């Protein structure tokens, strides 16, 4: 040890001990001797009051208000701040029983001791006024202003969807939400949750032991104002939608109307439907249970989720494919003996002029013609095998948006089904099946299944002569742009020149001089082009189907109508579609067609079918 300052270690040791000793004395005074800090702590109760933004309003394409907000009050509780209180008085103000108080507090405590939970939802303004004066007696409780959705028009429940409280799963997926927050659960409310919801804000208040607000915490330095949600405008035409829902009353089915040039959905009806008000506020749970146990399944959005056979309407697509592939041209004709018979298989056809080429075949919906061209396509030697030919056909079909989700701006859209070759391989063995086995696809039957929105989209693609724009319900949103996906033309694999003969056929189906399948859909001056379908339904009566667009040149509306168990396309679907088109293009129904409107309004397929209604899902 050669250093002379080794003794300084004692001084340094003392220097370490000295401030620590001083701290210990100071802490002893602070923590043990002086009670004032404990008092300050108990009066130092902070309350975070969430500022809920009002959700964005929803308008239709003409600027009519579809959804707005109404104030409501939730009673909140923070378990850690609770003090014993007069339960009897509390219960009498709120008209609840003690059991409710106990279970709710236990539930809140289980969720979080420090964060607020909803104790009682949506108390009335009157109760709120009484409670507010007595709040000082109930520390740990406070009132949280909220808003509820209101629907000035009783329409479009499936489109608008509803708002509900987030559940645990949603919170895990999206940590921005906390228990008690509202979130769009279905429809536009869900798809555009981000735009509509706005941003929650928070105000922090200091609250004393008597539950009195003493002022804002740190002068509001940590407060964040709520940002209201963005208003959105839907492409929906409210009056057309209302009219469509009226026409479809007492029927099961769906209408989808699209503006072909933009892909904007003008109307999307699914019946039976429900009143949107039923799923708002405290009554929601009870009504929801009731609606979901209804055998007609009103909560089910048939426009996007019901799988139907395409029926004869699908002949248009098969015709286009045959033209595109050069199997036939528009003048190739086919005689029809009134049936299509191969070996033991016979498909019947109606009486009509014969022979028919493309336009006439569509006009009269000739089964023989379409069976021939479909089999000619699949069997064509240029493909090498039926499977290869089938795959060519399938690729064309899929280019119309079948068999996949269209990715319209709705949650829960289903994809329909276009069977792949492997599907038949499984039944018949690889390369063991022939075009005859799948000939029902020629008529839109068989394993093919589609949703109404997909059919409307096909109609739009035909109206556009070869392309479609993904159908969407959003027209405009404040402070942001709509998805560029909804501006992009999606081309089918059919060249535009092949559409004219097919459209001619659809025109003649409605206006045909010597017999058309849908002459009932004729409206003076509207040039409606359409195609009926009768979708064979293995579970009951056939579904009535109709596709149409109008006017023939520069089409403004493309529509698909499905009415379940209503028989021929011309009986129900075609009149309804024509009324919808007339309503949209002319604004009113001409006097000479009022009888038809009346007949449609009065038609009732539900009460007739109540007995086996639950069988109709497919």
């Amino acid at each position, binding site marked *: 040890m050669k250093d002379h300052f080794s003794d300084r270690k004692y001084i*340094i040791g003392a220097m370490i001990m000295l401030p620590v000793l001083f701290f210990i004395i100071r802490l002893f005074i602070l923590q043990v001797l002086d009670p004032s*800090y404990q008092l300050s702590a108990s009066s*130092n109760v902070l309350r975070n009051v969430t500022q809920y933004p009002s959700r964005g309003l929803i308008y239709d394409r003409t600027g009519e208000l579809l959804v707005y907000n109404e104030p409501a009050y939730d009673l909140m509780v923070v378990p850690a701040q609770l003090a014993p209180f007069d339960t009897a008085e509390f219960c009498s103000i709120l008209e609840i029983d003690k059991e409710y108080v106990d279970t709710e507090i236990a539930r809140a405590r289980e969720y979080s*001791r420090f964060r607020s939970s909803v104790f009682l939802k949506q108390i009335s303004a009157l109760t709120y006024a009484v409670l507010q004066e007595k709040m000082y007696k109930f520390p740990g409780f406070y009132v949280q202003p909220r808003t509820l959705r209101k629907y000035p028009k009783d329409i479009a429940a499936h489109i608008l969807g509803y708002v509900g409280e987030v559940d645990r799963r949603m919170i895990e997926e999206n940590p921005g939400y906390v228990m008690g927050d509202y979130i769009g659960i279905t429809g536009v409310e869900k798809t555009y949750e981000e735009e509509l919801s706005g941003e929650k804000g928070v105000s922090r208040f200091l609250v004393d032991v008597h539950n009195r607000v003493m002022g804002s915490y740190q002068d509001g330095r940590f407060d964040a104002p709520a940002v209201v949600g963005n208003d959105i405008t839907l492409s929906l035409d409210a009056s057309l939608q209302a009219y469509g829902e009226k026409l479809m009353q007492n029927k099961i089915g769906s209408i989808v109307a699209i503006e072909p040039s933009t892909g904007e959905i003008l109307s999307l009806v699914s019946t039976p439907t429900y009143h949107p008000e039923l799923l708002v506020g405290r009554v929601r749970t009870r009504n929801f249970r009731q609606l979901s146990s209804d055998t007609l399944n009103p909560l089910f959005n048939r426009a996007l989720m019901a799988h139907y056979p395409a029926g004869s309407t699908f002949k248009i697509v098969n015709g286009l494919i045959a033209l595109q592939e050069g199997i036939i041209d528009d003048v190739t004709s086919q005689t029809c003996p009134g049936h299509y018979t191969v070996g033991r298989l016979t498909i019947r056809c109606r009486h009509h002029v014969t022979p028919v080429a493309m336009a006439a075949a569509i006009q009269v919906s000739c089964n023989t013609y379409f069976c021939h061209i479909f089999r000619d396509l699949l069997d064509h030697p240029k493909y090498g095998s039926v499977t290869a030919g089938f795959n060519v056909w399938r690729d064309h079909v899929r280019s119309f948006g079948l068999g996949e989700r269209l990715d319209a701006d709705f949650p829960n859209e289903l994809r329909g089904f276009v069977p792949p070759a492997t599907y038949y391989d499984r039944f018949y063995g690889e390369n063991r099946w022939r075009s005859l086995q799948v000939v029902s696809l020629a008529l839109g039957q068989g394993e093919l299944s589609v949703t109404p929105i997909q059919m409307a989209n096909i109609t739009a693609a035909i109206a556009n002569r070869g392309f479609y724009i993904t159908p969407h319900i959003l027209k405009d949103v404040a402070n942001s742009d709509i998805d560029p996906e909804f501006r992009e033309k999606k081309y089918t694999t059919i060249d535009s020149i092949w559409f004219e003969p097919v459209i001619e056929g659809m025109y003649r189906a409605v206006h045909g001089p010597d017999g058309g399948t849908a002459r009932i859909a004729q409206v003076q001056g509207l040039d409606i082009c359409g195609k009926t379908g009768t979708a064979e339904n293995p579970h009951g009566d056939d579904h009535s189907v109709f596709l149409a667009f109008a006017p023939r040149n520069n089409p403004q509306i493309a529509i698909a109508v499905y009415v379940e168990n209503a028989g021929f396309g011309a009986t129900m679907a075609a009149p309804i579609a024509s009324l919808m088109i007339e309503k949209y293009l002319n604004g009113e129904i001409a006097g000479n067609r009022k009888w038809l409107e009346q007949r449609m309004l009065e038609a009732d397929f539900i009460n007739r079918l109540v007995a086996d209604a639950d069988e109709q899902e497919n």
Partner: protein
Amino acid sequence: MQMNRRINIWRNLDWLTVIVWLVLLIIGWISIYSAVYDDAHSSIFDTSQRYGKQLIWMIAAVVIAFSVILTDNKLFLFFSYFFYGFTILLLIAVLFFGTEVNSSQSWFQFGGIQIQPAEFAKLATALALAQFLSNTKRKIHDPKVLVNTSFIILLPVMLILLQPDVGSSLVFFSFLLVLYREGLTGWVLFFFILFCVLSVLALLMNEINMLALLVLTSFAAIVTVLRNAKLTIRGLLIFAAVAGIVILFFRLAGTDIIVDLQLVIAAAAASLVLFIISAIGRISNAPLVLGFLFTAIIYTYSVDYVFDNVLMPHQRSRINIVLGFEDDPLGQSYNINQSKIAIGSGGLTGRGFLQGTQTKFNFVPEQSTDFIFCTIGEEWGFTGSLVLLALFVLLLLRLLYIAERQRSSYARIYGYSVIAIFFTHLVVNIGMTIGVVPVIGIPLPFISYGGSSLWAFTIMLFILLRFDAARMEFLR
């Protein structure tokens, strides 16, 4: 042979220190969990939360500690200057490429990891200082050595002040303690501590109290330099007598001078008389004390004067922030108040784990980093605070013991550096939370949330333990 050496190192490792270190880490982890507790993420292992992250930093710290122990200690010696130079480069680089947080540019951001070079600069400076001063040819009072030593210490201080991070730069002044141990005259350390205290007090207190404090300090100093019990008692009597006479005079004269000032004048007069007597009695240090008295008075007033008239408004507000004034919408020092309320509400035994309402409801700012002691004070009370302080004292005294048993002056100097840094962090951090030191944002070693500081402190500690384990074979 190699094997043998390894075993010796593990056997010679100071396990007491290692255990205290581990206990502190765990206390820190649990405290962070409690400080930022969130019902939605209630698992202490949830790595999306600070407590989960801290666990990762802790595991990394253990790995780092192991690596340091397994490193040849000659490496630290060899690379002292190199490491110092590298850290200086980092401190320069952070000024240009760093991320700005809270208006100071002191972090590097690498993906999700933030590195604060200032934390590592303390370690580098300690190594460089040890390297420089351990050269036996260098005598500490040689002006050249003093200048170089000051340069080693002040260079990082300057760079850190540029960020600006006043808290971290102040820590470097704790190296004075090391210099003192190595022979620097005690006056430097004494004056430094005194001026620190004066600067803070001058801004926190009004002038009269300040003056009284100065007079009493100088009186105490005079009494100390008398170095003789009989003289001291006589001195005290003279002081009391003179002061009494002056106060009596004021009473009889019935002046309108305020009482505070009367007391100050009385004490000043008494000090003066005492000084004259000691000067006549040829007591050598007395002029020094008088010089100090007047310097201190001038300094005190000049702090206020410079503060009010020379500094630009934004500089003033920066100092105000450091002193906890500006951060203060509720009139008084808000953060300190909330911190004191949180600690004070802990009582003797605390509110219990996770039961602290003050820290839970975010009354206390920075509760997982600089104000982590609030959580401990609130939830574990006086008992918990005492245990924590005891652990730190145990650690510091143990390190003192370890530093003193080193055979090489390099290891000893380095050891003192570690002690000085830990000590400063402890005093400033805890002092801040209980309101006796202005708010200077520096972490509580091993307890506060944050990877950089945890790793830097761990490396610092384990390099010392590595030297200690090899002290028998390491002579210089």
